[in-house]
C-alpha cells in the first residue's frame, strides 16, 4: 500500500473494511510519515474532546393530558388509515369477505322431484317413437326435395338439348338452302353459256 491520506483518515475513524484495515496496519509498521499523521489525528481528536458535553439546563418531559389526547378509537382509526400496508390488507380482506358472502347467499337451484321408473320408461319410449317419426318425416321430406330437384335438373337439361338440336337443324337447313341456291345459279349460268354458243 502506498501513502494515502484518505485511507489513513478512514482507518483512524474505523470506517475501513477489515481487509483494508489490515493493509493499513502493515503499512504503518514501515512508514514513519503515516504513523505521525495518525498520531496527529489522535492528538486533534483528543484536543477536541477537551470540550466535553454539558448537562442540559433543565430536563425535557411531556405530561400525559387526556383532554388533548385522541381517544383509543380515534388513535386506532388514525393508525389504520395511516398505514398503506394495513389498508391494503384490509381492502383484500373486505374483498374476500364480499366474495364469500356472495357465494353463501346465492340462491341454490330448485330441486325437482324425480319421476317414477315406469313413468320414466314410458316417457323414454314416447320420446323414442316421436324421435323416429320426426327422423322419418325429415328423411322423406329430404328425399322428396332431392327428387324434385333432380326432375328440375333433368327437365332443364332436356330443354337445353332440344334447343341445341333445333339450332343445329336450323343451321343445317339454312346451309342446305344456300347450297341449293348456289347450285341453281350455276345450272342457269351453264345453260345460258350453252345457249350463247
Amino acid at each position, binding site marked *: 500500500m502506498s501513502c494515502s491520506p484518505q485511507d489513513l483518515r478512514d482507518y483512524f475513524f474505523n470506517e475501513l473494511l477489515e481487509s483494508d484495515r489490515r493493509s493499513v496496519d502493515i503499512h504503518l509498521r514501515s512508514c514513519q510519515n503515516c504513523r505521525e499523521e495518525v498520531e496527529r489525528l489522535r492528538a486533534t481528536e483528543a*484536543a477536541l474532546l477537551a470540550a466535553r458535553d454539558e448537562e442540559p439546563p433543565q430536563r425535557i418531559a411531556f405530561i400525559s393530558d387526556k383532554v388533548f389526547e385522541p381517544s383509543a378509537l380515534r388513535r386506532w382509526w388514525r393508525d389504520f388509515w*395511516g398505514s398503506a400496508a394495513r389498508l391494503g390488507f384490509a381492502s383484500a380482506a373486505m374483498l374476500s369477505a364480499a366474495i364469500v358472502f356472495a357465494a353463501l347467499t346465492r340462491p341454490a337451484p330448485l330441486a325437482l322431484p324425480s319421476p317414477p321408473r315406469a313413468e320414466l320408461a314410458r316417457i323414454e319410449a314416447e320420446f323414442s317413437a316421436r324421435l323416429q317419426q320426426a327422423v322419418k318425416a325429415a328423411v322423406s321430406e329430404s328425399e322428396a326435395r332431392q327428387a324434385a330437384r333432380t326432375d328440375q335438373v333433368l327437365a332443364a337439361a332436356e330443354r337445353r338439348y332440344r334447343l341445341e338440336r333445333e339450332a343445329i337443324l336450323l343451321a343445317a337447313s339454312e346451309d342446305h338452302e344456300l347450297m341449293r341456291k348456289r347450285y341453281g345459279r350455276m345450272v342457269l349460268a351453264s345453260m345460258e353459256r350453252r345457249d350463247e354458243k
Partner: protein
Amino acid sequence: MIFRAVEDADLIRKAARGDVEAYNLLISRWEKRVFNYLLRIVGNREDALDLSQDVFLKAYQNLRKLEDPERFVPWLFRIAHNEAYSLFRKRKPESEGETVPPDASHMGVSVGGSSVFPLELSLAVARALDRLSPDQREAVVLKIYQGFKFEEIAEILSCPISTVKSRLYTALDLLKGDLAPVKSRGA
C-alpha cells in the same frame, strides 16, 4: 449496547401507541446528546434548549411515521438538524446573510468548571472550531462528538457520504494545524 437498542425499540413502539411515560424515558436517554449537538451547532444554550424541546415534540408527533425503530437515532438527529437550520433561516435577515452564526465563546466548550483539561486548550478548541464553516463544523460535531458512522451522518444531513467525508477531512486539516501543535507544546 444491543440490549439498550432493543429497549429503545420497545419504548419507541410504546410511545407510538401514545404511551407518554415510555416517551419520557426515551427522552431522558437522548436529551443530553441532542442538546449538546444543538449547542455546538447554534452556539447558544437557550436556543439549544428550546430547539431540543421542539425536536422531541416533533419526534413524538411523527413517531408513527418512523418505519424502522432501529433508525430512531439518525432520524431524531435529522429532525434536530432541520430545526437548527430552520432557526438559522428565520434569523438570516438579522445576521445579514450569514446562514449559521454561532458564537465561538459558546461552542459547547466547558471553560473552567469541573473540566480536567487546561483552560488554554479549551479556548484553543473554541477558536479552532470557530474557524470552520458551519457545514464543516457540523460534520466534526456529528463524527467526533456524536460518534456517528459516515452513513448515518449522510442520512442526517441528507447528502452523499463523499460530501460528508470532504467536509470532515477539510475540517480536520484545519483543526490539525491549530490543535496538534497546542497539544505538543502542552505535553
